[in-house]
């Protein structure tokens, strides 16, 4: 019973981490049709900004607030300068964003000297409930993930900005004819996705420590999650991320971790073979 509770908590918290990382990726993929291969490095950059603020002697939570803003701003600039040239050619966009990611990754590697650096949790230690330890910071991540998810959904589904984003996605010509600056909408959406990645990086860096390859693992997991969940909707990638995160944290409890690691991908491939549209098909925010 105790083990079951701990297992459930650990699986839930890792699932939340994956959802948090995938959220930005999913929004960019679904709303803009761009598979952003630099998303993992946006996560890394968020982690790096948090470390930087910490190393300047400022409090870590401040770093966690600065990170999404800084990464979002960079995302905005990159969209204006690089990414928008690729909307007509999604395959080239993958290569282009991969190149951007490579540059960010190697730059961070240079700045950190290739070392692994720790950032303390703002809330450390464990919560004890009846002799069971629950890592406090992981609980905070679960809560923040739920909040961010709800806020992102509200933003896209219930605000006028969200309406414009959806309009630009559904029918760019008509949106432009209606006086919406689709170019600006794309920039802001991309920046928003990047900011979410930056926030994810800032929140997970105390758990995994900062290192240059932090983003890669999540990038691959993130793409599998988006494929399984289905591109085009808001809920799809989130559902996919929950499934992938849960499976990758749960399977090692049952079998050898090396087999579990492969099995997640095998299951994902089989699933996509039989349901290529993913868990949730359709486009838009509310479907």
């Amino acid at each position, binding site marked *: 019973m105790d*083990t079951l509770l*701990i*297992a459930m908590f*650990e*699986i839930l918290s*890792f699932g939340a981490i994956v959802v948090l990382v995938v959220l930005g990726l999913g929004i960019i993929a679904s709303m803009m049709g761009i598979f952003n291969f630099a998303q993992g490095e946006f996560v890394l950059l968020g982690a790096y900004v948090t470390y930087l603020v910490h190393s300047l002697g400022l409090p870590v939570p401040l770093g966690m607030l600065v990170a999404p803003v800084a990464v979002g701003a960079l995302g905005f600039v990159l969209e204006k300068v690089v990414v928008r*040239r690729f909307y*007509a050619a999604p395959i080239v966009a993958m290569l282009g964003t991969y190149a951007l990611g490579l540059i960010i990754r*190697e730059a961070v*590697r240079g700045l950190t*000297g*290739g*070392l*692994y*650096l*720790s950032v*303390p949790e703002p809330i450390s*230690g*464990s919560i004890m409930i009846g002799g069971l*330890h629950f*890592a406090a910071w992981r609980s905070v991540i679960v809560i923040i993930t739920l909040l961010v998810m709800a806020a992102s959904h509200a933003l896209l589904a219930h605000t006028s900005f969200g309406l414009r984003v959806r309009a630009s996605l559904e029918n760019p010509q008509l949106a432009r004819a209606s006086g919406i600056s689709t170019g600006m909408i794309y920039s802001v959406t991309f920046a928003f996705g990047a900011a979410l990645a930056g926030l994810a990086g800032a929140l997970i860096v105390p*758990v*995994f*420590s900062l*290192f*240059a*390859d*932090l983003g*890669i*693992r999540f990038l691959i997991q993130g793409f599998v999650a988006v494929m399984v969940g289905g591109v085009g909707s808001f809920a799809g990638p989130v559902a996919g991320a929950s499934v992938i995160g849960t499976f*990758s*944290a749960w399977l*090692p*409890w049952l079998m*050898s*971790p*090396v087999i579990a*690691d492969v099995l997640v991908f095998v299951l994902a491939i089989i699933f996509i073979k039989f349901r290529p549209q993913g868990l949730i098909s359709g486009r838009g925010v509310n479907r």
Partner: protein
Amino acid sequence: MINANRQLSRRRFLGNFAFASAAIAAGPGSWVIRPDWANAAEGPIRLGIATDLTGSLGFAGNTDANVARMLVKEINDSGGLLGRPIELLIEDTASDESVAVGNVRKLIQRDKVDLVIGGISSSMRNAIKDVIISRGKTLYIYPEGYEGKECTPSLFCTGPVPAQNCDQFIPWLIENGGKRFALPGSNYVWPQTINAYARKVIQSSGGEVVFEEYYPLDQIDFSSTVNRIISNKVDVVFNAIVPPGVSPFFKQLYQAGFSKNGGRLGCVYYDENFLEMNQAHEIEGLASSLDYYKVLAAEDPVSARIQSAYDKQFPAKFRFSAGSAATGTYRGLKLWEAAVKEAGTIDRDAVAAALDHAKIAEGPGGPAEMAPGKRHCRMKMYIGVAKGGQYEIVARSAGLVDPKEC
């Protein structure tokens, strides 16, 4: 469209072509450090360093290149070897075996070096040793601590191997931790080989292995492992998980109360570079077994001299530490220097014959010598325990420890 004004003109093509050929000729990631004096008759002795200056092992490779720079400068300043200066040629192996083979070939075929020191991971050593030894007919020194079993002629290993890591360390862990061991490791050759060796020593020392398990190299969540460790009442975690997994693993162990309830962490490769990976309180009491720690400088004047000379020349972030192969590189180069002096030539077989029994009286952590016929190095070993983000030396070998290889 975007490409309309970017058509390839002849001028543009020639420009690109010239740039590309210049880049290929110079070779990305090549450095040549020429001596400031020359021996007119014979020219310099050429020393090749092939190490990971970029990529995931860059933090270690840059340290090794720096150690070579420091030692070559020392040797050249004191009159060179056999009256000839040493020219240092550094190639980047980029933590990538396919890049490495091409770059090492440059060292061998174009630069015709007399010795190659380098390679950090075992896969790198396996990728480049053939280029150096069989086809290149050149001597090769591998400086990193590794899993052992490398018995190729003309290949000399100067880092610690499992016998040196474990023979003293595991009885210490049993005494200062307990008898029930867990052997978690990353899924590749080094953890599997060292765990197989550790298991033998654990059993012969009266301990027992509760479980041994391997993980994908990039796994970063270890909740099921931590749970097994806690619920099986493991006393000692003998860790062979490597970065990036090791930091979240230690953190999760700490959060589950492992060390608070008297558990002991042991990890043979953990040097000063890794102490920053976790917050100090998370790895308090972690024990590691290495051939050198920076704190030795406080008691050993030779180590102090080497450490301060390095820190003065290279104050940047690449630290002189055992796990980076800095000590192996130092020993390798000095042993080779002694061998060349004895042989009186730089002919490969003559130097190899002399290197087979070479000794140095002074090195980081103490003297060192090659075990004759084994091509592995005898060295002193130390057990360090992390206290407040620093290592404290708690035990040391009586003399030089035999590698028991080949």
